């Protein structure tokens, strides 16, 4: 394993269809750390997660992203996954006709390559993770995200994360659309999977997920820039005061000049 930090983002600029959304972000996630990235709608949260995942529509126009010391921007989405990056989607896609079990096997094979376990071991590993996430085995025979409730989709994302065992997980608004029970299950799943060699970047609009997952660092994203970073108390402050207070700092830095 490389000694380089897990994720380093330096002065990152990202555009979508020619419009700049991320306007110079820097942050570093080390192994064993959970970072929360919070911000209002339209601040660029999903743009950052898509850029990290390697969505072809999101163009990095400046700065760089180093993942375990390697240039992430040069890699296609599938290569990023094989290097140990996992993106839990805000809106997971349905794949009619493909069962969850088959999909998990394909993904395991793709990500693990030569180290792919035998079909029997795979099935065993998948069953263990299902139990961890309090999910029924019948779930495996359903078509991926096809007719899933919001909660089922998010659990399915966490199940994939559990099975693929990434080094860095980016969770894009995984808490949105979840009732409190589902939120608890998803958060417990993340907590149990988290370990000293893994890092998590939690992207969220609301503070409530942070009642269940304790972040080491909280960043506030406003209009494509990180305007504040701090400990978990920052999240509570945002919950009490809203994002308005942070916005003045963005203004002070020249945004509305």
């Amino acid at each position, binding site marked *: 394993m490389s000694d380089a930090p897990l994720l380093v983002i330096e002065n990152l600029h990202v555009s979508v269809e020619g419009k700049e959304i991320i306007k110079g972000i820097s942050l570093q996630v080390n192994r064993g750390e959970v970072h929360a990235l919070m911000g209002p709608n339209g601040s660029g949260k999903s743009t950052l997660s898509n850029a990290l995942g*390697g969505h072809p*529509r999101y163009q990095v126009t400046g700065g760089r992203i180093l993942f375990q010391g390697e240039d992430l921007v040069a890699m296609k989405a*599938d290569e990023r996954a094989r290097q140990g990056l996992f993106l839990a989607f805000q809106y*997971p896609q349905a794949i009619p006709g*493909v069962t969850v079990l088959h*999909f998990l096997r394909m*993904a395991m094979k*793709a990500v693990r390559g030569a180290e792919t376990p035998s079909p029997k071991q795979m099935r065993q590993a998948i069953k263990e993770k299902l139990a961890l996430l309090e999910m029924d085995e019948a779930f495996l025979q359903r078509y991926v995200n096809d007719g899933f409730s919001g909660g089922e989709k998010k659990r399915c994302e966490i199940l*994939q994360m559990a099975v693929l065992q990434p080094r860095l997980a980016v969770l894009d608004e995984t808490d949105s659309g979840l009732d409190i029970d589902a939120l608890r299950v998803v958060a417990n799943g993340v907590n149990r999977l988290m370990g000293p060699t893994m890092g998590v970047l939690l992207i969220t609009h609301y503070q409530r997920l942070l009642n269940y997952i304790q972040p080491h660092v909280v960043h506030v994203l406003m209009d494509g820039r990180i305007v504040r970073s701090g400990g978990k108390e920052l999240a509570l402050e945002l919950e009490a005061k809203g994002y308005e207070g942070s916005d003045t700092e963005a203004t002070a830095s020249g945004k509305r000049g």
Partner: protein
Amino acid sequence: MSSIISITQDQLAALSQRRHEPEWLRSLRLSHWQRFEQLPEPSTHDEEWRRNDLSQFDLASLTLATPEAMAVQRALPPEAQAAGVRFADLAEMVRTAPEALRPWLMSDGLKTTDRKWVALHSALWTHGTFLYVPPHVTVAVPLRMTCHLTQGGVAVFPHTCIVADRGSQVMLFETTTAATDRRSVVNTATELFIQEEAQVAYVNLQAWDGQVVSLTTQRAHIARGGQCTTLSVYLGGQTTKAYVETLLTGEGAVANLLGLHMGEGHQQVDLHTLQDHHAPRTTSDQVYKAVLGGSARSLYTGLIHIRKPAQKSNAYQLNKNLLLTNTAKADSIPKLEIEADDVRCTHGAAVGHIDAETEFYLMSRGLSRQEAGRLIIHGFFEQVLGRLQQPPPQGAADPPRNMAGTVQEEILEAIDRKIAAAL
């Protein structure tokens, strides 16, 4: 078409003589020949030929295939043979047991069509298979048949006649392939007679090479309480013009009509389906899906016809197309003709591309772009392929094995070879 392979009626009679065919068969051939001569030439002014290139179907430069031009293999398990199942070469049946053929061969199955090239097929058939399952006999494993065309520049007329007698059950899996160097025209016809309470699954995997132009007719007659599942898989050939027709003639008859097509390059499939309900409480469910790459084309015309006596019938029709390129094209023309007033019919059609967001989702799980496409196509086809289930044998104590499993796997392998070429 009438300038075909410089054959005359006398030569056809002589050919029948050389094959030692009985008088009834010779006159059957000749009567179809006369119909062929009388029926009008297809023209691109006709709705059904409007989108075709007629020169592809031209027979003038081709020779009539000899028996050696196409290798046909069949396997009949000894238990099935002992139970009286016949699964044999048509010419051999003509020699050994012509009377067993007589009620069925080229009878109701085909004579009601007024298509010139079907009449030609019925007059000239060169190769053939006859499958007969006696009353209440269940054939426990899928019967296999492979046809491999080895000569180019020929006109071939393979015929399949399937008779499932009362209460019998059978699945037939037919594979057609070719390795030829010049254009050939394969004019095939399959007749299916599903008698009272019989259950038949008929799977046709068409994987001709790129030199083959095919004209295909399939007509199923389903009697009272009979059930028929057909799966047509079109992967090969330059152009395939196919008619899949189902006549639900007995009360409570059920038809599941499944189709998969994958095209690339300039391949074209022109499929016409007919769900013809003659009797009350009949059900037909037709699903046809196409995946098209390159400049491939799919034309789908589907007719649901519910006749006046067919009250309380259900008919469904669905055509879905997945385009891999901007140059591929799919057209869908559903038609309804409903004469009964207490029926339920639905039809739907859709054309779409592989969704960029879905592709990104799969790639974010480590799949390459090609693997992602393959998985999406598998899923798209699975919703058809997964419906190929043979019903459990009647009175079986053990939980039923999915006999269709190996057939499905083999079809998926053929599709995978095609995907590798198209993606």
